[in-house]
């Protein structure tokens, strides 16, 4: 077999080039001075420095490690014992058990995730009654009456999908083992336990190690199952990255991954060297050459089997165990501590320094999560797994939530800053008596276009459906906005309940879709797509447009002549919120003039706080030493004549909502 290996190695090399090209890019851009993952702006280590201040990334990394370590430990032990048990079963019993063992592996992750979600939700529904009953006849332990998805459910899910891998790796080793060995050991006076430690364990050790390794790898890399079972207050690194990929991935994540990558690489290299040495040793033994080991190693071995050596060995083992427990405790403390308030808002919708400041002022930890759209938020609330305190839905969703009795009335005596809200934004139709809401931002929906790619003067929605720009338009990925715009263009009300009008709007969008006008359906991905000049048109919110403008000066925004939607997003508290008082503090903090100014500056959405809105141009000048472009101010806080062209969404009746859903799904088929 002394053939030319050149061809074969080239092919393997090409395969690796394919596998590693994106990874090298990732690592490369973790040293980028800019925040893009496509444009190189010079070398810098800033993202590595920032890593140690980025709470979201650090916390989710801690959660990931915690869950993976625990799940690996539990499933390795449980899986090994289960494998021994299964091995000992008679065939009649073994076969069905093995089929069930295969199920999680044969099942798609999404099915596993969804089915576990349904189980947990069903259990939580029943739990309230059980807990009350338990609490009623004993007073030793107070059981919480309300359970939610979190670290516990995440761990259960991970253990469930890890055990089969351990069993799969241990079983073949058991089968290869000579069963007589165990009996021989027992005949010689070993108890079963001793036989286990002295005979079985060494035989199956390689299987256990590889099983544990695979389990750990799977746990760390898992996204889908965690996504469905982690709930609202726990986030793994994968979930954090997923919510970022929708908008803009901060290179901090690249930095974290690069570090993990390097750590694993080093481990693998060490392991490789060790293995290579062992193989050499084994080869020598096989050839009956006297194995000449380093005398120091030899002496060390001997010393290890003396009583003192054994003591050292036990102490080392104990220290390692303690270190493992310590790590777990530390990570647990890091991920769950202090009074909290759980907030769910939209992506990049807050100046994150405000969160830190609030935490420092009050000592209350903020679990800040994001949802993709009002409809997605509604799903999160409906499936019962979320335990948010504060949510920030838009107008029409608020009225739907009020209608369904999902919101708690606010205690305005704890929110003195409510006074500063402009009266224009109080008592709006979605909350006529203003019992449930404190407005967060307001704004308009319009067309964003790239002036470098589009020569025409844009003032109508018609461009979104025009063949002239085929493949250049991004359709907004939520039914209410996509159909609302089409309704406006056709001259109907955005709140129409007439099925014919809605069907007409659908036909308009569908027709353009078929003709290939739309390049894609996006929500938060619109940022990087438009900023990178990858599409000419999009429909999105005024505030987000201004964020994009900071990264691409060619972008323009217009509220078309046919009119549009204007919206208010407001903070509300969910019924039975676990941290009601903390929620009040948070709302009051965010409603203050200072918070509003800083938020406005960061997210570019107009503030409903009268003082802040009026002060902003002056504040801007003071901060940056230059005047705020009045045009930008007018886009952010649309003047009354623009608002007059716009309509606010109201909550649609159930039948209409179903029609929207049905048509929306049909559109993508």
């Amino acid at each position, binding site marked *: 077999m002394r053939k030319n290996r050149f061809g074969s190695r080239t092919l393997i090399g090409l395969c690796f080039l394919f596998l590693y090209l994106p990874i090298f890019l990732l690592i490369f851009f973790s040293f980028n001075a800019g925040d893009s993952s496509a444009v190189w702006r010079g070398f810098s280590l800033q993202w590595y420095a920032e890593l140690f201040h980025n709470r979201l990334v650090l916390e989710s990394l801690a959660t990931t490690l915690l869950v993976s370590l625990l799940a690996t430990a539990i499933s390795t032990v449980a899986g090994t014992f*289960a494998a021994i048990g299964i091995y000992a079963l008679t065939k009649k019993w073994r076969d069905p058990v093995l089929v069930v063992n295969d199920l999680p592996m044969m099942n798609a992750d999404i099915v596993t995730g969804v*089915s576990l979600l*349904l189980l947990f939700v069903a259990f939580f529904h029943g739990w309230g009654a059980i807990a009350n009953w338990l609490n009623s006849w004993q007073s030793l332990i107070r059981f919480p009456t309300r359970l939610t998805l979190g670290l516990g459910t995440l761990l259960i899910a991970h253990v469930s999908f890890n055990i089969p891998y351990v069993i799969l790796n241990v079983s073949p080793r058991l089968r290869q083992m000579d069963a007589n060995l165990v009996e021989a050991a027992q005949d010689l006076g070993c108890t079963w336990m001793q036989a286990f430690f002295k005979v079985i364990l060494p035989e199956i050790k390689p299987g256990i190690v590889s099983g544990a390794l695979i389990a750990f790898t799977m746990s760390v890399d898992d996204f889908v199952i965690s996504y469905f079972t982690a709930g609202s207050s726990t986030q793994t*690194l994968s979930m954090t990255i997923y919510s970022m990929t929708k908008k803009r991935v901060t290179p901090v994540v690249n930095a974290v991954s690069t570090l993990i990558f390097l750590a694993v690489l080093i481990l693998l290299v060490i392991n490789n060297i060790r293995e290579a040495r062992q193989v050499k040793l084994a080869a020598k033994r096989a050839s009956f050459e006297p194995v000449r080991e380093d005398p120091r190693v030899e002496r060390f071995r001997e010393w290890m089997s003396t009583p003192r050596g054994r003591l050292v060995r036990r102490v080392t083992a104990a220290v390692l165990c303690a270190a493992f427990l310590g790590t777990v405790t530390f990570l647990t403390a890091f991920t769950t501590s202090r009074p909290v308030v759980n907030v769910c808002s939209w992506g990049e919708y807050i100046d994150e320094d405000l969160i830190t400041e609030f935490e420092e002022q009050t000592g209350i930890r903020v679990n800040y999560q994001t949802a993709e759209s009002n409809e997605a938020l509604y799903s999160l609330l409906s499936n019962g797994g979320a335990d948010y305190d504060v949510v920030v839905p838009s107008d029409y969703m608020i009225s739907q939530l009020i209608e369904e009795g999902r919101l708690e009335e606010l205690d305005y005596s704890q929110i003195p800053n409510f006074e500063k809200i402009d009266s224009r934004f109080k008592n709006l139709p979605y909350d006529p008596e203003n019992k449930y809401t404190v407005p967060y931002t307001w704004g308009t929906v319009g067309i964003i276009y790239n002036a470098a790619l589009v020569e025409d003067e844009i003032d109508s929605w018609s461009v979104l459906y025009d063949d002239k720009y085929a493949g250049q338009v991004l359709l907004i990925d939520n039914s209410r906005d996509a159909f609302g715009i089409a309704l406006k263009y056709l001259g109907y009300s955005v709140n129409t309940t007439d099925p014919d009008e809605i069907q007409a709007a659908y036909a308009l969008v569908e027709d353009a879709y078929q003709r290939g006008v739309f390049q894609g359906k996006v929500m938060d991905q619109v940022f990087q797509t438009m900023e990178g*000049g990858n599409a000419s048109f999009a429909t999105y919110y005024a505030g987000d447009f201004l964020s994009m403008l900071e990264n691409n000066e060619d972008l323009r925004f217009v509220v078309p002549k046919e009119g549009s939607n204007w919206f208010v997003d407001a903070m509300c508290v969910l019924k039975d919120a676990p941290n009601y008082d903390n929620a009040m503090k948070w709302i009051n903090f965010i409603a203050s003039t200072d918070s509003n100014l800083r938020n406005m500056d960061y997210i570019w959405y107009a503030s409903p706080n009268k003082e802040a809105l009026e002060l902003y141009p002056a504040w801007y000048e003071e901060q940056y030493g230059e005047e705020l472009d009045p045009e930008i101010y007018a886009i952010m806080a649309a003047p009354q004549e623009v608002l007059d062209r716009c309509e606010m969404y109201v909550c649609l009746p159930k039948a209409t909502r179903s029609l929207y859903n049905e048509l929306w799904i049909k559109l993508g088929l």
Partner: protein
Amino acid sequence: MMRTKRGWFAFPYMIWMALFVVIPIVIMLVYSLTVPVETAEGEVLRGSLENFTGMTQYLSVFGRSFWLALIATVICLAIGYPVAYLMSREGPGFQRVVMALIMLPMWMNFLLRTYSWMAILENNGLLNQLFQKLGVIALYNRLTGSDIDHFQMIRTSGAVVLGMVYNYLPFMILPIYTVLTKLDRRLIEAAEDLGANASTVFRRVTLPLSVSGVVSGVTMVFVPAVSTFALSRLLGGGTQMMLGDLIENQFLGGAYNPHLGAAISMVMMVIVVICMLVMNHFGDGEGEAVML
């Protein structure tokens, strides 16, 4: 003696599996067979086959998912088998390094790797910039008489397939490689001694003996590929709706309807399990062949 004695070791595990594998699927089945109905006392569940009968309108999504996953699996096999085969014929030192290198990418989050592909495939992305610089686009324009300034690569079904192949290729290589290294070399020598040439040896000995690796490789690529939603969303740009998207949409997305979502999941599960059973039949039941 030991065989019967320690059987109870499996019981805690069996209870665990019943709780967290079997019961969830039963609950899902219950969900899929009911629909919520408004009554005077609020919403109640009523047994119904509506979720299944109404599913015909999603046939195209089923078709697209299975089709794209099938293409990705075939490509993975076409790349993975030769690579695994060539790897298994290398020296042991080289093999160890290559094995480590195949496992390593799994430690980079798959979403991040996919995001990296987005930057490569974008209309203004690295690949298109490269084509621009090399004059490929100008050449294409001259040849076809068109006038484009980029190739549309992202937000197409091709990009989704690429993402699948990229992410799941190691899952194809690993099991095939494991089977090939365990293959008894004496069988090949025997065949050669009996006068078979290289291609006959491969066709009559190596290939049939590696089928179990191929079967588990295909399973490990096809199942995640058919149900992905992150890949189709990130690389397909929402234009390539797949089963995963459809299901995710019903549970956590814009169209809240867990009953329909459960029904779609059930149907997908059944189809996948049937596919796998058929596959395993070819593999002669050596299901546990292989991971490392």
